[in-house]
């Protein structure tokens, strides 16, 4: 690998203390003021730097994996063990930092990743800041790209219902764990589902996550990437729960099966999304969703589409089997109170029926390689990936890495 192991870290600054402490007038410049001022006794002024640099110096930064408006992502390895790879997400300092300091997204991501330890949730190893107040998140290294790349690569990747079951099961376990911890993810979509070296799915990007609200506490309805957003949020519901994530999971499930976005509204706006949901699932009405007409933003096309029947669904998604379609219908139920909960999804007979979910080692491996991780992580929450265009192509052009390495192909 051509990556330079150079640390992107300037040397420690001279002790700031000297600026404010009256210097001895001798002017010898040898720092003879007191014996315990030597390097062995760190000064309080540098305690903060020390804590940070201890963490920072554990890693050797390598090549840039991706660069976006919001963050740069670098590959890095442990100084103590070059085989232990990590990804360092360096949050860019935007103009908003002058306005309100460290961003909400960063704080949210740190908040939730520090708490949630689960095999299917991306691991946050550490956080440190660098001299010029840059925030760095040390994340698990996930070299196999993301689910979106697998779904889109219809030319060279084929996968089976057993593979879909394996991926979905991992996603649902992650979501169950989030919800059990009282956390809503609010941005589930295929490009936030990264793939580890061993094929395991890892839910990433908690920049839009929040704790479940107390009763009566309003929340924003303007969240979740639009194609994966549930109807109640288009109708501007301010009180919602885990059901919003389940809808997104249902969209991912359908997308895995048909290899196309389920609700691909174009242009991407709320009205078109509601129209599509009505066409594909049925029009939300007082009959199928009591109370829906009271929601502030409730507007539907005047022509009422009856709720799609099981046969309608089967016609499109038959390849996943009857039980799979049953689960899909229950995840994409309009009324969020009737939609399955995360636990309900896991208790569905689909998982234990034949075929068994594929073993990790049998899952298709080529999710676009390590650059995709950089690609996915650099995005801000709620952004749609530029569809069809392989982002990786535009990545790393500026850096001096000769060739991008496809970890998947090396297997």
């Amino acid at each position, binding site marked *: 690998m051509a990556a330079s192991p150079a640390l992107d870290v300037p040397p420690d600054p001279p*002790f*700031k*203390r000297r*600026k*404010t*402490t*009256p210097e001895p007038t001798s002017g010898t410049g040898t720092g003879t*003021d*007191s014996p*315990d*001022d030597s390097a062995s*006794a*760190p*000064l*309080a*002024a540098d*305690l*903060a730097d020390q*804590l*940070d640099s201890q963490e920072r110096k554990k890693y050797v930064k390598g090549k840039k994996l991706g660069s976006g408006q919001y963050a740069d992502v670098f590959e890095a390895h442990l100084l103590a063990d070059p085989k232990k790879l990590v990804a360092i997400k360096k949050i860019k*300092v935007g103009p908003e*930092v*002058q*306005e*309100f*300091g*460290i961003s*909400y997204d960063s*704080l*949210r991501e*740190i*908040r*939730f990743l*520090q*708490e949630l*330890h689960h095999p299917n949730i991306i691991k946050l190893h*550490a*956080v*440190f*800041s660098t*001299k*010029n*107040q840059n*925030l760095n998140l040390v994340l698990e290294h996930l070299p196999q790209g993301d689910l979106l790349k697998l779904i889109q690569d219809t030319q060279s990747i084929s996968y089976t219902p057993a593979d879909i079951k394996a991926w979905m099961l991992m996603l649902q376990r992650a979501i169950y*764990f989030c919800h*059990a*911890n009282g956390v809503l993810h609010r941005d589930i979509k295929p490009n936030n589902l990264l793939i580890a070296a061993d094929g395991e799915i890892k839910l990433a990007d908690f920049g839009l996550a*929040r704790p479940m609200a*107390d*009763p009566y506490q309003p929340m924003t309805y303007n969240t979740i990437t639009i194609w994966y957003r549930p109807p109640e949020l288009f109708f501007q519901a301010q009180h919602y729960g885990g059901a919003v994530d389940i809808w997104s999971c249902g969209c991912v499930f359908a997308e895995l099966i048909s290899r196309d976005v389920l609700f691909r509204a174009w242009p991407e706006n709320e009205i078109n999304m509601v129209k599509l949901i009505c066409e594909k699932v049925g029009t939300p009405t007082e009959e199928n969703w009591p109370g829906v007409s009271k929601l502030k933003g409730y507007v539907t096309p005047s022509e009422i589409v009856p709720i799609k029947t099981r046969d309608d669904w089967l016609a499109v998604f038959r390849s996943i089997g009857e039980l799979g379609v049953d689960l899909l219908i229950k995840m994409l139920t309009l009324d969020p109170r009737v939609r399955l909960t995360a636990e309900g999804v896991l208790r569905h007979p689909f998982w234990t029926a034949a075929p068994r979910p594929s073993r990790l080692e049998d899952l298709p491996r080529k999710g676009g390689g390590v650059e995709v991780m950089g690609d996915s992580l650099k995005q801000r929450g709620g952004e749609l990936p530029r569809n069809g265009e392989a982002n990786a192509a535009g990545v790393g052009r500026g850096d001096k890495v000769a060739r991008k390495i496809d970890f998947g192909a090396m297997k």
Partner: protein
Amino acid sequence: MTTPITEDDLYRTSTQHRLWTFTPTTLAARRTQTHTAALARLPLRPNHSNPQPFTQTDSLALLRRYTSQLHTTATHLSLPGPLTATACQYLARFYLTYSPLTYPPRQIYKTCLWLACKVHGTHLGLNDFLRRIGSEGEKDVVLAAEFLVLGGLGWVVEVKGPGQGLKGWLVEAVGLAEEGELEGLGMPGEGARTVWKGEGAAGGRVRAAYAAAKGVLERPALLTDVWFLFSPAQMVFAGLMVADGVLAGFCLERKLGPLDVEVSERVLEAVRACAEMLAGFDEGEVLGREGREEVEARLEMWRDPGTRDLVGRFGAGKAAGGQGEEAEERRKEMKKEAREKSRREGDELFGPGLARKG
């Protein structure tokens, strides 16, 4: 067979339990360690004759005063209870890493509140925030300490408190009252903080106990060490114990029901110890304005001069790193200002201006 995750399992994985929970002994040791380390790092000693030292007791008293101030400010701004608790815990946790000698709380506490506002998604603008706390023009100072504070917290921002648990108890207990389960319970004991005096139905008793416990958990809990020593669930029942011990005891016993005797004895012990701390909190022990000024004057004499210039060290100007001439200009200006300021303060360190500080 898989076993479902219990709330206890989840709590044990939380950063609050793993990193920010102590025994009384380990908590005291950590404080002593931080204080000693700060003293050892001081490059200079005041050249006054016999200055009174700045002790660990001073440090705790000052922190309690600033916690109280945070609480008052947050209440004044009508910020939600959990947000207030988060801000106060940031302050408390920060000062397990650093001593006031290194970073006086006056420089830090507003940043704690600002960070808590952001973590809780209040979407209050910074200028608005500053105006409402009467600190216009302190933008740079508040922002400068952000990374410092987060670093001192070990980059952990989640704080779990008893608020939600207490609400959950209310729902359950109202249910019990409606089912008539609370009939025949004895009257609240001596010293119970509930206002309920036996009138009306059991539902009234439950609500009165809730209100009293909420009061205890919203202020005294923040001004004692209970957050470092007990879990949120233990705090809920401890708050209820202080409010209405008889009712709390009944509900706790019901909850513990099938646990073996040894475990429930341990739980009860923890709840009682927590309740004792909460009940023992004395508002009079919080430093008044004069007390604070006295302690801060002494702190001013002893404090580490090397950490005075927060804005210069961590300021937003640095963050702007290389964003054109304007930023450069601003940065220089800020540095100059900060230098001036710290020089002035440095002069005061030895000069007569001490009594003026407030």
